[in-house]
């Protein structure tokens, strides 16, 4: 059903309508896997960082109930006035055009609601923006169309590598189309990771939905963001700013492992990537 077929210019929306129910059941039957998008998912992904959990709470507990209530309230009012004041039921219109107390109320109540929203909003914002002291710093550079990672020397790194999309022909069982890459970036679990984000050519954006992190990669600027992954696992992200024809083909994969495994990986990676990729070195030195 999901075959790539470039010749099929005419695959129409009509076929789509027929296929909806079938796909819907398939979608809901699949379970949610942390770190990757849920088939047919309705809400935010499972979050694995403090900032992500904060975002999830803020959206699910504060924003979502309030906006749902407002939408239903307005819909209810519209239905009621349409029913109660249609010309059959109410042939003589009233001449009511002012009601100062009412107008004050519908100005003040929204203000109060917004004040109520702004308190958790601004608290979460500060948590996102102020980077705590980090035990690991990595530099991520956007390129057309892949990401480069650099691990600093003073933290046991001193190497860099490119992270490229795994082509469809090379996918192994368990890999995800458009999300799996050749070189995963490892970080230790339960430690604060600071990420420096920049770009070599056009603007990209580094985003991992289950971290609550989205940061633009802008040439000439070094942006900083952070995450602390509280659960081991593989987490997928994508480029979140249009950057040319292969914008959809530069995924991000971060694997969170224990400190011991991370140290082992550092040692291996140092060997593996030593001088392996001159493109990365040039990229890193040009900044």
């Amino acid at each position, binding site marked *: 059903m*999901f*075959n*790539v077929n*470039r010749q099929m*210019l005419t*695959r*129409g*929306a009509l076929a*789509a309508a027929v296929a*909806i129910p079938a*796909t819907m059941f398939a979608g809901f039957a699949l379970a949610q896997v942390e770190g990757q*998008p*849920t*088939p*047919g998912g*309705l*809400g935010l992904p499972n979050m694995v960082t403090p900032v992500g959990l904060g*975002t999830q709470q803020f*959206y699910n507990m504060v*924003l979502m109930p309030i906006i749902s209530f*407002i*939408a239903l309230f307005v*819909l209810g009012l*519209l239905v009621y*006035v349409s029913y109660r*004041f249609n010309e059959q039921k*109410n042939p003589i*219109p*009233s*001449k*009511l055009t*002012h009601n100062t107390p009412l*107008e004050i109320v*519908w100005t003040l109540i*929204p*203000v109060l609601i*917004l004040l109520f929203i*702004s308190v958790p*909003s601004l608290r*979460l*914002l500060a948590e996102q*923006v*102020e980077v705590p002291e980090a035990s690991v710093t990595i530099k991520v550079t956007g390129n*057309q169309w892949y990401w480069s990672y650099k691990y600093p020397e003073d933290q046991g790194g001193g190497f860099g590598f490119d992270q490229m999309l795994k082509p469809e022909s090379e996918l192994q069982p368990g890999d995800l189309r*458009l999300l799996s890459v050749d070189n995963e970036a490892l970080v230790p679990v339960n430690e604060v990771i600071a990420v420096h984000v920049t770009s070599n050519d056009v603007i990209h954006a580094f*985003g991992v*939905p*289950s971290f609550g992190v*989205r940061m*633009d990669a*802008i040439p*000439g*600027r070094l*942006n900083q963001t952070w995450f602390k992954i509280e659960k081991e696992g593989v987490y997928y992200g*994508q480029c*979140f700013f*249009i950057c*040319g*024809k292969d914008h*959809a083909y530069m995924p991000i994969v971060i694997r969170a492992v224990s400190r011991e495994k991370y140290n082992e990986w550092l040692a291996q990676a140092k060997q593996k990537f030593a001088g392996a990729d001159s493109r990365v070195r040039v990229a890193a030195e040009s900044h």
Partner: protein
Amino acid sequence: MASSTMAGAHDHPRGLRRFLFSTNHKDIGTLYIILGSIGGVIGFLLSLGMRLELAYPGVQIFPGLAELLQGADPSMALDAGKNLYNVFITVHGVLMIFFMAMPILIGGFGNWFVPIMIGAPDMAFPRLNNISFWLLVSSLVLAVISMFVEGAPGMKGFGGGWTFYPPLSSNTGSPGPAMDFVILALHLAGASSILGAINFITTIFNMRAPGMTLHKMPLFVWSILVTAFLLLLVLPVLAGCVTMLLTDRNFGTMFYDPAGGGDPLLFQHLLWFFGHPEVYIVILPGFGIISQIVSTFSKKPVFGYLGMAYAMVSIGVLGSIVWAHHMYTVGMSLNAQRYFTLATMVIAVPTGIKIFSWIATMWGGSISFRAPMVWAIGFIFVFTMGGITGVVLANASADKQFHEGYYVVAHFHYTLSLGAVFALYAGFYYWFPKMTGYMYSETLAKANFWLLFIGVNVVFFPQHFLGLGGMPRRYIDYPDAYALWNLVSSSGMIFVTLSLVVWFYAIIEAFMKKRLAGANPWGVGATTLEWTLSSPPPFHQFQVLPRITGASR
């Protein structure tokens, strides 16, 4: 014979002369509506291509389209197709904003009804009005040409989104001339709108009939006045912004190039200083139209007239100082993000006043559910839906989860694709009998409504789920997990397409059946001046200026 010399004294050209060289506000308004409809249909076809592509994971139709439309070599078809998808999203955005919504709402309805509603014979500067229109036509031609000349190396058209951020739009990303065509198109569209804005402001301030004070003007005129001021203030900023991009591209300046001490963020700030007021430029005339219609069909004056007028003024002012909420992820300082969060949320207050005042206008009214009213009620609901997700996105903290994702796409299409377009259709069905003299089929107009209402909700509501799940926007292909909601979203286009067919048929049917509408088809609720004239109005109205005594809202 005396009367014919009277008529001869006024210029009343016919045929090609009448429309090419027109200085008559009604003829120019009609031209704008036709141009906007053409722009809208092309923009719709582009979105149909995008939704067909996104119906299933994988790349299906764009490589073939690239071969077909741009003559791409079959060996390069996949890359050309990916590029063409980006070109489609870019041109879709540009067309829908600059060549559909603005021409119809401001150039079309504004030109037609602002002079009539304030009791003026025509616009203040009729020849300026003519050049405004033809500048926009030239601009559209340039924008369409840009799709067929080189942009990115080896690719045709500029595919960087309607926001044109450098370095993707500078020589780094698109060295070919496609982006230069886009910049010149923006220059012409901007000049056209600035001239139009000057014309509206002058007309509204100087040509009101005796007794038509500012506080007696219909709310549609208020909405055009606020819009015109916004246009006049922010379009020069856009012009400067893209001119600097033009000199960066062609004359070696470095405004946006960090290698020469420039900064790509300067472009973003300038663009959104224009771009955010621009979304209010698109929606404010809609607010005005909805106010007229709700009042007409509830047979009641607008509730809280002054509050409604000044809510639009404050939306205009606030809308001009919140631009960087489009840039929460660029790495702004904490305090800047705090300010833009709070300032953006404040806009919800005047917007709420408008929603509640419309409902209060209906409250106690005697509502007749004619087609324009059905569209207006639909507008109030879908605009509320777009407004509340706007409150979510106003929060810099929540936006970090949604930025450049499908939640944002759903949000702004609920405000614009549903909000502005529903207001546009409401206005179209409200004034169609006045503009043409013929009544359309009520059944077809309502069928058009229900098809579009169902269609756009099926298209855009599931996109909230995609955005929550983390799907980035402007993607030609997506991970398989997003397949379900993309398929549902694409299937909504069936209804949208049908609604357009019904719309065309409704127009053709009205012109064929020639049911005369009469001066005022809407009854006692229609109190503004256009309903005192014949349908269609005479070539020159108000040879004797009307005198406004009571409240004529």
